[in-house]
């Protein structure tokens, strides 16, 4: 491991990669602060730039920096404007915004930055410990287990979608999977489902889909619902210091939430959003009675908890991506797509084949956190000026960047028409409360899922691999349970609410 860390340090501390981290964090903070634009949209917009860098380490470092910066920027707009740009920072606004209203905006930002820094750094250390362990286990997996593991990942994503949403999330996953089958695959050498259209021969482009699913609906929502884009002058930010007592009181919160957030982040489907809400709830419940009253009115513990948890969870979500090649969230799915475009296949072989990529990413996470603390925090009063940019100028630019992203990726104007078409569909789906992240995850995993499925079918001459390999069977049973349990529990809860006695 020490050797790996050294390789990582060497790669991450090259001038180019340091610039990537700094640039990524700044861009991420800058755009993440704009209300309504989440990390997924920003990363989707940044992908063409990252891909044309050509160097996978640099690209991944840039995108990871953007990711961190976006989360940090999101918490800034939650604190200053009560307008969270990202679902993962909604819990931050519970206590952050009351603090800002009391004139303690500077203090709130500092606490948020320190909590994020600690969460992210502890997360990076845990990642360093757990990722190699997990990937050495994963090396024992065959294609059958990979297939089963991906099914588990996809069903977990659906299972975490919430009550009444499981069928919709599965539907979206399946839609993503069937979109992945369009075009000519390497496996069969024949075009499928192209309806005779030449433009579909190579399948749908991942960047176009990512833009259409995330960036475009966000922008359209900003247009349709002006109240969502609360731009305007924020209150003055001054006095960034916190006292020793305050630091002492948030230290245990930060410690607990780093661990909890990290492990929630590792689970597929449960990302920063669940981690931050759960972190807030847990800290409120275990706080002494007197402090419990302060939660929601500007408690520093209530601010530190979700901030630590969401950053630790972001780091945690890299574990399944880097070790198994299975993304657990929309953001990591986009990162996976970018990596595949750069000819890197994340998975257990990544540590063996490209150790410099693996370790450089981990080290640069740490550097990214440091940069957010020492560079972005002092700059926040200036970066916050972006909140004053009028939306009449902002929105055309967001739309233009989505168009450019899709065009640069494919160099094809038809792609832009596809982008608009998919964007309209995605907006309608969001109206109807269908989750969009599963669609993209399904689309990205679709090719790999089918490859592994076909390989196992060929090795075992049929579907007997399902019962002949106990681990595959076990994983598939887990996948079924994940899908069935939430609706079963909801049904039972309803039955109980209706006064029907439990069967057992």
């Amino acid at each position, binding site marked *: 491991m020490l050797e790996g860390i050294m390789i990582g340090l060497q790669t991450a501390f090259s001038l180019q990669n340091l610039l990537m981290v700094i640039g990524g964090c700044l861009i991420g903070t800058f755009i993440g602060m704009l209300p309504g634009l989440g990390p997924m949209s920003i990363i989707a917009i940044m992908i063409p730039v990252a891909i044309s860098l050509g160097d996978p380490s640099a690209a991944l470092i840039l995108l990871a920096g953007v990711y961190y910066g976006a989360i940090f920027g999101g918490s800034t707009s939650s604190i200053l404007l009560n307008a969270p740009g990202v679902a993962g920072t909604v819990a931050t606004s519970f206590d952050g915004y009351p603090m800002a209203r009391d004139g303690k905006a500077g203090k709130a930002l500092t606490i948020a930055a320190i909590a994020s820094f600690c969460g992210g750094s502890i997360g990076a250390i845990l990642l360093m410990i757990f990722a190699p362990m997990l990937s050495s286990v994963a090396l024992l997996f065959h294609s059958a287990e990979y297939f089963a593991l991906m099914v588990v990942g996809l069903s977990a994503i659906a299972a975490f979608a919430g009550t009444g949403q499981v069928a919709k999330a*599965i*539907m979206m996953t399946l839609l993503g999977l069937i979109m992945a089958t369009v075009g000519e695959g390497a496996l069969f050498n024949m075009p499928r489902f192209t309806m005779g259209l030449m433009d579909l021969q190579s399948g749908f482009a991942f960047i176009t889909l990512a833009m259409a699913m995330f960036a475009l609906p966000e922008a*359209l929502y900003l247009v349709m619902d002006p109240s969502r884009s609360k731009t305007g002058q924020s209150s003055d930010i001054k006095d960034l210091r916190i006292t020793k007592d305050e630091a002492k009181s948030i230290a245990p919160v930060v410690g607990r939430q780093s661990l909890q957030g990290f492990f929630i982040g590792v689970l597929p489907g449960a990302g920063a959003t669940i981690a931050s809400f759960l972190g807030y709830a847990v800290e409120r419940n275990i706080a002494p009675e007197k402090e419990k009253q302060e939660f929601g009115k500007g408690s520093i513990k209530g601010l530190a908890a979700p901030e630590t948890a969401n950053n630790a969870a972001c780091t945690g979500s890299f574990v399944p991506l880097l070790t198994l090649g299975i993304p657990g969230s929309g953001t990591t799915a986009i990162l996976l797509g970018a990596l595949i475009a750069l000819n890197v296949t994340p998975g257990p072989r990544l540590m063996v084949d490209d150790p410099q990529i693996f370790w450089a990413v981990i080290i640069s996470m740490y550097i990214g956190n440091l940069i957010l603390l020492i560079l972005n925090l002092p700059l926040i009063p200036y970066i916050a000026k972006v909140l004053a940019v009028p939306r009449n100028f902002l929105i055309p630019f967001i739309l*233009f960047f989505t168009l450019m992203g899709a065009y640069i990726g494919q160099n094809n104007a038809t792609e832009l028409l596809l982008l*608009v078409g998919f964007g309209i569909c995605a907006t309608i789906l969001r109206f109807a409360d269908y989750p969009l992240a599963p669609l993209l995850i399904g689309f990205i995993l679709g090719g790999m899922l089918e490859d592994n499925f076909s390989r196992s079918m060929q090795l075992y001459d049929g579907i007997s691999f399902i019962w002949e390999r106990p681990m595959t069977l076990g994983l598939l049973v887990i996948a079924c349970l994940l899908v069935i349990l939430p609706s079963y529990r909801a049904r039972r809860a309803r039955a109980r609410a209706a006064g029907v006695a439990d069967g057992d």
Partner: protein
Amino acid sequence: MALDRWIGLILLGIFAAYGYAAWFTMDGSLAPFMRRNPIWPSTFPKVLSVLGIICGLIIVLGLEKSDKPREENPSVIVYRQLKEFKLGQAGLLLGLMVAYALLLRPAGFIIATVGFLVMGSVILGERRWITMILVAGIATGVVWYLVQVVLGIFLRPLPAFMGV
């Protein structure tokens, strides 16, 4: 019927068409030696279509019920609010994007992009013409430079009839 179930019905239709192609039409053109393979190009799509149709039926028939009313969730925008939304502006902007897609090659990057940015602001109600044109012009120049020179991707700057 609520919007989400109508969409469920549309998705069900998509899966049915997909399933029809996978089960009945795709295998016709399969080479004889491929038929000995345990896996056909249509195998995976067949599985997906069955799962998709089951899932679609669950949504359309409303078998899975939600515990909490949708209004409790502030992030969900109920489609009944549609009337309050500025659909016209959104539609015009989408039309503008289509126009941009069609004009990008023939009109060249600079004219198309400046036009797009200015028209976009105009649709949103901006009337400070000089500021708009200045901002759009500078942004277009910077982006063109970045894409063409830094990233090395060809973007035709001027209209087709002016060469290059």
